[in-house]
């Protein structure tokens, strides 16, 4: 792929191998569209992972992080602050819509040709012209304008259509976000999301805290996949520092990440049952989740926020006396799985609610750059643990779970099977734990540089970009969470189905809005 780009574009682009993925390609003046077109034509599994916007002084950098079936590259472009205009790539790849909106909202870049510009993560009472991620904006100097009279709920022109607002306070959703669903009778015709209710400005806050403090800050992006966020940040920083952590630390990290995956999947499986009114199975799933929380507490000292990851390794060692307890708990969980599988296979009401609901075709999953169980439930086999193994995953024996039907039932089954695979991984790691140190002492200041790190969080591919300028505070931290990539798929699958299916469909993509909004 990189050779193809070199030969097509020659001197018009600069290629830097080994940076920000397999290569960083600098392409200005709208050339990024042509590069992307070439890549899309060459490999149909090309998709966009993230678009990072960063304030580089007089210019704003817009980096497109692209994944293909075998390489990960970054296309770097620049726009000036006086005239921050660039061309959109939404017509080439639908999955880029949300990413461009976010860069526009937070940095003020105008993407010409974007179908629906507007506030994305910032609130309606945000003053015009102030872009939070620009360096000259200070948090305590922002004056909010009064909220416009109504949030301008546009009523559909066709009077027969009804617009139902779901959220921000809604018993189905643990988190606040708003979906305006337009229905014709009982069939959904359009879904308009409004996110940003959980936007806490974490990326900006990271720039005014030290690297060690940022580990704790990044962890708190999401309580459910907290270890993954911490690991993403720590992994990127270690790449800038060009250090290799000891093997025991890698294994301990894998154990922490897989425990995280276990508790998250059990949580989702239970929550999905709650959505379809199946309270009994919800209670059973969460009852079986409690021993995993006990394990997380055993290994790290806290039930939810394990805070095990640190720059240079892990914070705590695993005692040999704890290992038998880990193994017995996992055995008990493994013994319970056939009961749940049997419910999913045989329970008629559950199958009526979940089968053929929210079908996402494989082509749509590829076009929208879906990740995680959402993609794997539709036959699109992306899993960062297999595609680009990180930490100690290259040595772990596990299967990548792929189902092809693409409906809610398939996605939940992907998660259930992944529970079993996670148990396998943890047991292997615990049995083969290498000896040695579990942590390296690293300097507080990080030399100038930038790096990316990708990992497979329970919901899908999590992407971190960290840029440092030689001080003890990062220059820019960019996070692209899996739910951010998966929401467009919900907007697609909900159309044409009954509104009564919306909760079940929505929960099957395992949305985590605190991840999305950051």
């Amino acid at each position, binding site marked *: 792929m990189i050779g193809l780009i070199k030969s097509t574009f020659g001197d018009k682009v600069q290629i830097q191998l080994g940076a920000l993925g397999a290569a960083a390609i600098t392409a200005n003046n709208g050339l990024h569209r042509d590069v992307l077109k070439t890549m899309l034509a060459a490999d149909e599994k090309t998709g966009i992972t993230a678009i990072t916007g960063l304030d580089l002084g007089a210019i704003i950098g817009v980096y497109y992080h692209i994944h293909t079936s075998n390489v990960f590259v970054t296309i770097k472009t620049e726009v000036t602050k006086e005239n921050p205009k660039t061309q959109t790539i939404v017509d080439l790849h639908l999955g880029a819509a949300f990413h461009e909106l976010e860069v526009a909202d937070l940095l003020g870049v105008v993407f010409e040709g974007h179908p629906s510009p507007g506030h994305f993560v910032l609130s*309606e009472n945000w003053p015009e012209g102030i872009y939070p991620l620009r360096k000259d904006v200070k948090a305590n100097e*922002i004056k909010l304008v009064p*909220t416009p009279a109504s949030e301008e709920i546009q009523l559909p022109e066709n009077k027969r259509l009804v617009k139902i607002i779901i959220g921000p306070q809604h*018993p189905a959703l643990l988190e606040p976000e708003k979906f305006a669903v337009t229905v014709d009778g009982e069939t959904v015709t359009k879904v308009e999301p409004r996110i*940003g*209710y959980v936007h806490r400005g974490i990326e900006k806050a990271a720039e005014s805290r030290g690297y060690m403090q940022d580990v704790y800050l990044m962890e*708190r992006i999401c*309580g459910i996949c907290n270890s993954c966020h911490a690991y993403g940040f720590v992994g990127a920083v270690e790449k800038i520092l060009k250090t290799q952590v000891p093997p025991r630390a890698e294994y301990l990290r894998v154990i922490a990440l897989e425990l995280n995956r276990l508790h998250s999947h059990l949580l989702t499986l239970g929550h999905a049952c709650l959505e379809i009114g199946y309270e009994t199975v919800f209670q059973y799933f969460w009852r079986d989740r409690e021993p995993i929380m006990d394990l997380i507490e055993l290994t790290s000292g806290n039930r*939810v926020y394990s805070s095990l990851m640190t720059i240079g390794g892990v914070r705590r060692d695993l005692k040999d006396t704890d290992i038998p307890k880990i193994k017995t708990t996992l055995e008990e969980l493994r013994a319970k799985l056939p009961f749940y599988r049997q419910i999913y296979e045989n329970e008629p009401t559950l199958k009526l609610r979940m089968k053929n609901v929210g079908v996402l075709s494989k082509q749509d999953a590829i076009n929208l750059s879906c990740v995680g169980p959402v993609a794997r439930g539709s036959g699109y086999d992306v899993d960062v643990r297999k595609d680009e193994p990180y930490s100690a995953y290259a040595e772990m024996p596990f299967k990548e779970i792929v189902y092809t039907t693409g409906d809610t039932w398939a996605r939940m089954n992907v998660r259930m099977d992944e529970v079993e695979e996670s148990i396998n991984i943890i047991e292997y790691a615990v049995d083969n734990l290498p000896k040695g140190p579990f942590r390296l002492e690293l300097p507080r200041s990080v030399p100038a540089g930038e790096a990316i790190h990708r990992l497979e969080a329970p919901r899908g591919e999590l992407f971190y970009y960290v840029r440092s300028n030689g001080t003890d505070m990062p220059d820019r931290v960019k996070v692209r969470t899996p739910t951010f990539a998966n929401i467009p798929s919900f907007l697609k699958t909900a159309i044409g189905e009954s509104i009564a299916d919306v909760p079940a469909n929505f929960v099957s993509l395992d949305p985590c809005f605190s991840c999305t909004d950051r």
Partner: protein
Amino acid sequence: MTDTKTWARVKSPWVLHFNSGACNGCDIEIVALLTPKYDVERFGVKLEPSPRHADVLLVTGCVTQQCAERLKAIYEQMPQPKFVVAIGACACSGGVFEGNYNVVGGVDKVIPVTAYIPGCPPRPEAILDGVVKLLNALNPPKPKKQPKQAKAPEVAKPEAAVAQAAQGIVEEEKQVAK
């Protein structure tokens, strides 16, 4: 009659959970309260869907700008007597996110709070403990026996403060009812 009223209110607190911009940690610990290991239904606590049905508002999250107005609206929709519990370090004061540009920081900057439960996230046992303390504080305080010698003045216990707040609300509603 007051005793029966208070008894009924203490034995049957219905809660509404609102996430005002939280990371989900506190929320999953609240949902864990309903599950077999902690089973908060023992205390008569039911998770209600509508603000109109609830007595206690459990708020998590550091209150983002977008959520501040909604939080106020939900609080006003609840019928008296009502109590607000701020769960988690973020709800108490903004937590790690204090000072960020989109964060108001702390629930008590938007609505009055009756009880604070710190933690990041607080364990389900801690949330239960806080809720039970809130309920017990609703009971009128038992008269204390006069001490024989003069003792150093006692630091006001948190239960007393909560009880006073609760009494205040009860009296306020008596005013409203008149």
